[in-house]
Every structure is written in structure tokens, then in C-alpha cells.
């Protein structure tokens, strides 16, 4: 791609993807390790076994490195809203800002306060106080994620707001509808379990390396036991919450579901593609080319997952463009063309409303406001030129989704095997398994990133589902500016990643140090 000719919108999207992708290398490990180290410290407090303290302090040190390098990398995303996405930033008003503010004020400070006690408080505060702090670090990190995900979920399923044509902003009318939307809590659970999964894979991989090197074997086996247990729970729960995600996507973002499955022609009793290869010869959604080179399908499962009914009709891409099928609420789906017309009406009504208000023609303003409200649900369609603009990148969404699911299934088996070998106390002799443990780590990170690719690429062209596409959300800025900051971020983040890996590898090579004995009495504990 020519660096300069690509549009500012594409560069802004690439920049957001780059920073979010890098940021998401740090976050899952913070949350995942946060849980695992808290469990390990709990075992220390419960049993009084100093070896658990050694295990917990080592992972807390690794957690500290990851936290320090990763902290504030997410703030860069917020910088971009005001510069690259100023229309979006204004348009969403306080709905997006409120969860982010709560995240910054409440959750981050909770996390930051107790992280200090966790590091400085060993032998300084009571065991129970220290343990409480460690758990609060984990809870704080999870709460941080919750508020960010509430904001993201609102973009996927806008609810609890009302558009004010006077201020040209969406205003929050129901805080709880935004916070407790089914998409938000399901997204939070699914994402949190994915963090646990990454943390577990990390702990097991590093411990596998120690076993391969025949160093710190007791430490490694204890870590693998906890890591595998957390990992197994995480991946099973990922499957459960993934089912919830599929259900909500089917209801609220049917185009994303169709892209995830490469489904062009909808059908009743649709099957779920377990494995398949898309046909690159398929150029347009409505050509006659078979979308698959091959596929292995699980009959009826997509209908069951998406609509809780094995006979339900699952619309394909063509159906969503053409409309005319019956929706879950009994109404008939509008075609792209109809929605586009309504979107154009809404856009024009907003402009006319503003003009009428400026000229103090109140009756006309009221009339335009009424037209706008009637058609606001289709507002974003007025920015799309052709039906193709409505369709996300199908191959990227399809392969990302299926690869993520395959990795998930692999990890369930992997952690079961790890737990079996841990139970048999035969991990020391199983070098092949130690290698597998070590080399499985990139897969966990890959799956975690792929999840976001599915969520974000699959919902294109929307920044706010059905309301605002990316081209309308972006600022009128030159692509040169965005290219410059893109390169700056690429350098900065790569530097941070190199620093993280270098410091971490050094500490891992150094290995755990026996925990210092308690030297003080703790009247409170």
C-alpha cells in the first residue's frame, strides 16, 4: 500500500489496531497472572508452606514487570479519539466518556494503591492484609477491564441513550442499560476468561522451561498445577461465554455472524462450519460462486447457537443486504437499500433541524426532529454508498474466528493432559510435554488477539453499530499526520515490548528465590 495515498480513515484504523493490539499483549497477562498469583498466595496463607510464598513472590515479580511496562499504554487509544476520531468523540458524548472516567478514577487507582502494598508490604503488613491487597490488585485490574469493555460493548450494541439533535450528541438516559447490557457482561466474562487463559498458558510455559532445564522443579510443578487448573477453567468458561457471544452477535450483529461463518445464503437449520476453506474466487456477495472450497459442517448447530432453535433461520450476507426475512421479534428485515434511504432522511433531517433552529423556525425544527427520531436507527446507513460497504472482510473474520476456536479446543485438551501428568507426578520425565507447554504460549496470545480481530473487524464498517460508520466518525485530517504518529507508536510500542521481554527473560533465567522467612510479628494477622 502506498504510504501516502491510503486514506486518513484507513491509517486511523490501522493506528488504532496497532495500539490496541500492542496494549492487548500486556493486559491479559496482568489480569491472568493477577488471579494466579492471588491463588498461590492464598495457598501460602492457608497452609503456611513457605514454598508457596516463593512461588507467589516470583510470579508477583513477573506481574510487576508486565504491569510497569504495560501501564498507560491504553491511554494512547484515548488520545486518538480527540484527534483522529473527533466526530465520533463528540457524537458519543458522555456515554463513552463515563465508563472510561470510572475506569480511570476507581479501578485503576484501586489497582495502583494495592499493588504498592503487594510489593512493599511483604513482612510489613499482616499476611491477611497482604493477601487482601493481592486479591484487590486482581479485582482492580478486572474492574478496569470491565469499564473499558462496557464502553466497547456499547459501540457494538448501542443502548440506554437518546440522540440530542441540538447538541449533536448521544446522551445517556439509562446508566444501568449501558452498564448491564447483555452484550457488556458477556463480553466482560469472555474477555476476562481469555486473560486467565493467557496467564495460565504463560505460567505453564515458563514452568515447562524450568523443567526442561531441570531447574526449580518443585516450584515448576506447583506452578503448573495451579496454572493448568486455572487454564482449564478458563477455556471451558470461554466455550460457555463464547456461546453467549454467538447468541448476542446473532441477535444484534447478524452481518458479523454471517462473516464469521462465511455464510452468504441464509437457511433454516443452518450448520456450524467446524473447519473450512473459503473460495478466493468469490468476488461479490451476490455472484454465483460457491463461497467454500471445502467445509466440514456440524448440522443445525449455528441455528441452535444463534437462536436457541435448531430450525431457526440464520440470515446470510445476501439476505441481510436484500432484507425480507422475518426477524426474531416477528418484524420483516429491511433491505440495505431501504435502510440507506432512511439513513439519508435522518442525516438530512439533522442538518435541516440545525438550520431551522438557527432561523428560529420552531415548528419546522420540531418536524425535522420527528423525522430524525423516526429514522435514527438507520442513521449510519446514509453514509454507505453500496451494499458492499456493509460487508466486513469475510476471510479475515472467518479465519480468525475458526483459528481462535481451534486453539481453544487445543488448550482444553492440553490442560487436561497437563493435569493428568501432574496428578501422576510424572511431569519431570515427560520432556515432550515440557516442550509442548513451552511452545503453546504463542498460541494463547494468538487466540487472544484473534478474538479482538473477530470482534472489531467483524463489525465493520461501524464504529457505533448501525449509527455511525468509520468514514463519518473520523476527523478531517491529513493522512500524513496519522502516518507520522503511526510510525511513532510502532517504534514506542516495539521498544516497550523489547524492554518487557528482555527484563522478563532475565528474571526468568534468574529464577525464583527462596522466600524470606517472616521476621516480624503481625498482631492483626
Amino acid at each position: 500500500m502506498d504510504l501516502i495515498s491510503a486514506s486518513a480513515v484507513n491509517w486511523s484504523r490501522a493506528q488504532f489496531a496497532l495500539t490496541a493490539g500492542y496494549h492487548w499483549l500486556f493486559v491479559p497477562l496482568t489480569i491472568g497472572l493477577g488471579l494466579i498469583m492471588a491463588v498461590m498466595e492464598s495457598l501460602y496463607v492457608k497452609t503456611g508452606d513457605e514454598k508457596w510464598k516463593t512461588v507467589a513472590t516470583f510470579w508477583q515479580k513477573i506481574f510487576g514487570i508486565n504491569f510497569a511496562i504495560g501501564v498507560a499504554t491504553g491511554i494512547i487509544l484515548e488520545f486518538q479519539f480527540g484527534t483522529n476520531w473527533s466526530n465520533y468523540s463528540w457524537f458519543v458524548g458522555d456515554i463513552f466518556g463515563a465508563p472510561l472516567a470510572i475506569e480511570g478514577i476507581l479501578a485503576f487507582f484501586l489497582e495502583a494503591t494495592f499493588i504498592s502494598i503487594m510489593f512493599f508490604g511483604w513482612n510489613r503488613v499482616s499476611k491477611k492484609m497482604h493477601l487482601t491487597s493481592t486479591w484487590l490488585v486482581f479485582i482492580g485490574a478486572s474492574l478496569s477491564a470491565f469499564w473499558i469493555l462496557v464502553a466497547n460493548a456499547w459501540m457494538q450494541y448501542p443502548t440506554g441513550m437518546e440522540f440530542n439533535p441540538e447538541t449533536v450528541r448521544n446522551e445517556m438516559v439509562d446508566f444501568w442499560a449501558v452498564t448491564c447490557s447483555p452484550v457488556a457482561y458477556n463480553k466482560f466474562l469472555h474477555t476476562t476468561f481469555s486473560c486467565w487463559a493467557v496467564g495460565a498458558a504463560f505460567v505453564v510455559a515458563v514452568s515447562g522451561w524450568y523443567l526442561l532445564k531441570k531447574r526449580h522443579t518443585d516450584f515448576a510443578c506447583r506452578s503448573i498445577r495451579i496454572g493448568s487448573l486455572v487454564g482449564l477453567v478458563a477455556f471451558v468458561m470461554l466455550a460457555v461465554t463464547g456461546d453467549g457471544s454467538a447468541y448476542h452477535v446473532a441477535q444484534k450483529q447478524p452481518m458479523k455472524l454471517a462473516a464469521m461463518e462465511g455464510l452468504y445464503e441464509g437457511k433454516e437449520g443452518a450448520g456450524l462450519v467446524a473447519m473450512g476453506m473459503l473460495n478466493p474466487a468469490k468476488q461479490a456477495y451476490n455472484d454465483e460462486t460457491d463461497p467454500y472450497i471445502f467445509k466440514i459442517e456440524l448440522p443445525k448447530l449455528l441455528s441452535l447457537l444463534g437462536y436457541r432453535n435448531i430450525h431457526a433461520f440464520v440470515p446470510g450476507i445476501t439476505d441481510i443486504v436484500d432484507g425480507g426475512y422475518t426477524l426474531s421479534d416477528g418484524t420483516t428485515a429491511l433491505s440495505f437499500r431501504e435502510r440507506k434511504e432512511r439513513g439519508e432522511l435522518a442525516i438530512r433531517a439533522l442538518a435541516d433541524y440545525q438550520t431551522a433552529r438557527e432561523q428560529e423556525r420552531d415548528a419546522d425544527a420540531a418536524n425535522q426532529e420527528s423525522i430524525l427520531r423516526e429514522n435514527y436507527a438507520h442513521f449510519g446507513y446514509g453514509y454507505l454508498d453500496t451494499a458492499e460497504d456493509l460487508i466486513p472482510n469475510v476471510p479475515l473474520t472467518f479465519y480468525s474466528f475458526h483459528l481462535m476456536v481451534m486453539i481453544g479446543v487445543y488448550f482444553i485438551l492440553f490442560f487436561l493432559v497437563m493435569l493428568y501428568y501432574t496428578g501422576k507426578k510424572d511431569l519431570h520425565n515427560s520432556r515432550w510435554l515440557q516442550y509442548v507447554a513451552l511452545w503453546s504460549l504463542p498460541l494463547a496470545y494468538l487466540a487472544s488477539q484473534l478474538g479482538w480481530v473477530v470482534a472489531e473487524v467483524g463489525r465493520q464498517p461501524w464504529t457505533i453499530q448501525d449509527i455511525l460508520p468509520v468514514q463519518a466518525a473520523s476527523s478531517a485530517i491529513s493522512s500524513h499526520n496519522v502516518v507520522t504518529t503511526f510510525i511513532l507508536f510502532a517504534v514506542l510500542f516495539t521498544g516497550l515490548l523489547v524492554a518487557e521481554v528482555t527484563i522478563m527473560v532475565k528474571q526468568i533465567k534468574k529464577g525464583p528465590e527462596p522466600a524470606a522467612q517472616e521476621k516480624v510479628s503481625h498482631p492483626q494477622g
Partner: protein
Amino acid sequence: MEFESNRPATQYNWFTMFRAGFTSMTRLGKTLWIVVIVKLIILFFILKPFFFPNLLDTTYDNDADKARHVCRELYHKAPSTE
């Protein structure tokens, strides 16, 4: 990063715990703090002011003008009104 001492915990308040934690910090702890501080300086004193101005805040003084600007942008970006 861990802090060791023989003094009883009750003789310390939160402030002394933090002070002692910082003053007896290991090399790793210091390195991480340097990384954090350098990163925050880059973010808030270089990137934010020089590369990421809030376009609406720097161009318009009040909310009414910002709303009008966004309204115009939203109108002109629609293919039907180009």
C-alpha cells in the same frame, strides 16, 4: 522489590511503608520505575501536546460551535449530500 526489615509492623504507618519500599528498592524495581517515568513523559509531554491535540477543543471555544462543526461534517460526509 520486596522490602525486608526486623522492625515490627505496628511501628510503621502507611507512609513509612511506602518510603521504606522506595528507598530500599532493588535494581529491578528502579529499572521499572525509570521505564514508567520515561514512558509517561513521552506520552503526556511529547505525544499528547505535539501530536494529539483535541481538534474540536483547539478549534472552537464553545460547545455550540463544536456541535455545528460536527453537524456540518456529518452532513457533508454522506454520499447523497456530497
